[in-house]
């Protein structure tokens, strides 16, 4: 069993209105020293089917491409951790 920790972020050139809103709000609250705000999504998936790390990686890539990330505007990266099966 594997645990996939996946980060999905907007690509650099794509506008992220939400991150911008957060930065503006921080400014208004007086946190002038926060000069950059990035905001993305973080997923944790438990995969029970994959036998090997390669297989798990293949599945995660597929899931990211098909569902979790919009490859037109987002990029993703992930780590895989092996978990004790009992969990």
């Amino acid at each position, binding site marked *: 069993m594997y645990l996939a920790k996946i980060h999905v972020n*907007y690509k650099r*050139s*794509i*506008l992220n*209105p939400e991150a911008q809103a957060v930065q*503006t709000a921080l400014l208004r609250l007086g946190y002038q020293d926060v000069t950059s705000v990035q905001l993305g999504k973080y997923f944790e998936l438990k995969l029970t089917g994959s036998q090997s790390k390669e297989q798990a990686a293949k599945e995660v890539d597929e899931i990211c491409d098909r569902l979790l990330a*919009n490859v*037109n*505007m987002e990029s993703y990266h992930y780590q895989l951790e092996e978990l004790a099966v009992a969990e």
Partner: protein
Amino acid sequence: MELTPEAIQATKYYQGLGLTDAEYQLITTKILQRLPTYTEIGLYSGMWSEHCSYKNSKPVLKKFWTKAKQVVEGPGEGAGIIDIGDNQGIVFKAESHNHPSAVEPFQGATTGVGGILRDIFSMGARPIALLDSLRFNEPKTAHDKYLINQIVDGIAAYGNCIGVPTVGGDTAFDATYAANPLVNVMCVGLMDLTNREKGQATGVGNSIIYVGAKTGRDGINGASFASAQFDSKHKSQRSAVQVGDPFTEKLVMEACLDVIYKHQDALVGIQDMGAAGLVSSSAEMASKAGSGMTLDLDLVPQREANMTAFELMLSESQERMLLCIKSGSENEILDLFNDYGLTAAVIGQVTTGHQYQLSHHGEIVADVPVDSLATAAPVYHREKTVPEHILQQAAIQFSPNITEPTQILRQMLQQLTIASKKMIYETYDTQVQTNTIVQPGSDAAVVRIRHTDKALAMTTDVNGRYLYLDPYVGGEMAVAEAARNIVATGGVPLGITDCLNFGNPTKPDQFYELDEAVMGMTAACKVFNTPVISGNVSLNNEFNDVAIYPTPMVGMVGLIKGLNQITTQDFKQANDNVYVVGRTGNDFNGTEIQKLLTGKIGGKLFPFNLDEEQRIQQLILRANRQGLIASAHDISEGGLIVAIAESCFGKDLGVALSSTLTTAQFFAETQGRFLISVKPENKLGFEQLMGRDATLLGKVTNQQQLFVAATDGEFKLALSEAKRLWEGALACSLK
């Protein structure tokens, strides 16, 4: 490094930007009499794209009928204006976002909504309603479902957030749209005619102010992207994705309306930045005014570092506007924008002469005659030939063999084009601004004009299958159906906007469709007194060389002169009399029943008589004004039997009807017909007015059953079952 002018010429770099050899020649030899710089060639590629120049469609668009008494502003500005009396005008326009939505459905749809809103408020009107006209594949694959869900979510996300109700639209399904869905959005705005604005930059020394989102590298050269065709090889085009930010747009909208309403003295002109972004808005403002302009690109608010002049000019970052402000009033306007929390900057001036000059990092990067960008694009008169499939058409009408009418009705109610669209429009805020009197689910939507006794009826319609079989007659029918929907609610049609969704104009058989459709629409517009006041062209809707069905979306607005004249399609109470108004023929080619029974459409489209349709519509309006009508529903896809079922669903009332039509004829899609219900006390008056045009079918009942006897069989279905099938079909198909 940027290419040198010589390298651009040698490598024919301009071709990749969508310019032909001949167009490049024209620029080098006639217009500039020198080689254009990298930035300049970018300007021409954007401005001379189909999206901005209409170079392929101009000769066709000229055929539209645009001048009528009620028209205050026809095509040409951001949107058209129609006078509705009391010094008020309505502004409306539609826009297509087909290609962006095929690539990135959610953001493609949101930015479509954002774009059309800017067109409306830049005219000085407050947006009061949105409509969306959608064409999808019958959802089969996961990708089909993904497209549908995301596009609908995108429209909801933007309209709901900005607080403009999405009050109507239409949705149809056909395999022709599989790789090329259609996403057309229409916006209606209301204005005081005194606040009329123009997108012009006059007055030497006046300032050009930029306001809104900062410019990034998103959607660089999207205008030529939208004008190019799709095929499976060109995935790299997919960089042109832009993200919509409805919150910023809301601020931009409120701030711009504030400038228009309260700072008239400072304001010279205002225009949205749409296709081809900064170059198109600024060059058009200067060209229309006969002025010159200089812009200092270092002053343009930028989201990303190291952007080139090319990128700054052609970026299609959303939520941006350009204003021309009187010299001396700049700070007043900049302060106002600042109060709204918006980024704004003076980026240039109106100049004498007619040159369009850009400087960047202290250098002049472009210096061209402004008219050469805005109006000098070549115009192409394309060839047309009758498509092969039309030449081959069988002349006879398909004749449905209906052995089990009730069973066929069940299936018909589940055809996605006919099934309830509730699961779509329930995700739209249909009520914000608290003026929506008739919400989606009836014929046209109705939005009242607050503090008056007037209301506006609005609808979008077109049936691509009809146009595929006969683009001219299908074009007439699209306008007629829209008018029928307006009339059914009690409105007098005022005018239309359109989105011309067609294939590749350089292919003569596809150009034929465009040209014929526009002529058909024009003929109908004249009959219904609905001039074209605005519109949008989306060409090259083809995938791997196969075009979509010709689909000129018609968006129509009508005026209802008293709130008591508003009518809906729902039967109101038991014992009311049910009539079909208009003659029913054996009209089956291109219909839902043909598609259902044979799996395809074909043959010569059934005939249509515009004058007859107009005569029937006038009768319905007269009956409405005399208070004789309890409910009115236009008869369209699926025919009379579907209209009957739909009228039963609203208030859960049944019918007991009998007729001299055959069961097959109940599925005919003969145009020019209405399903009307009339209270017992109005029966006589109604029949006298209608004469032989109305045929009594029977009565509305309290029984929860749909019972209709035809000459050769009967339809008999529990209302609850009919409604369950009709309401459930779309959700079920998207599971």
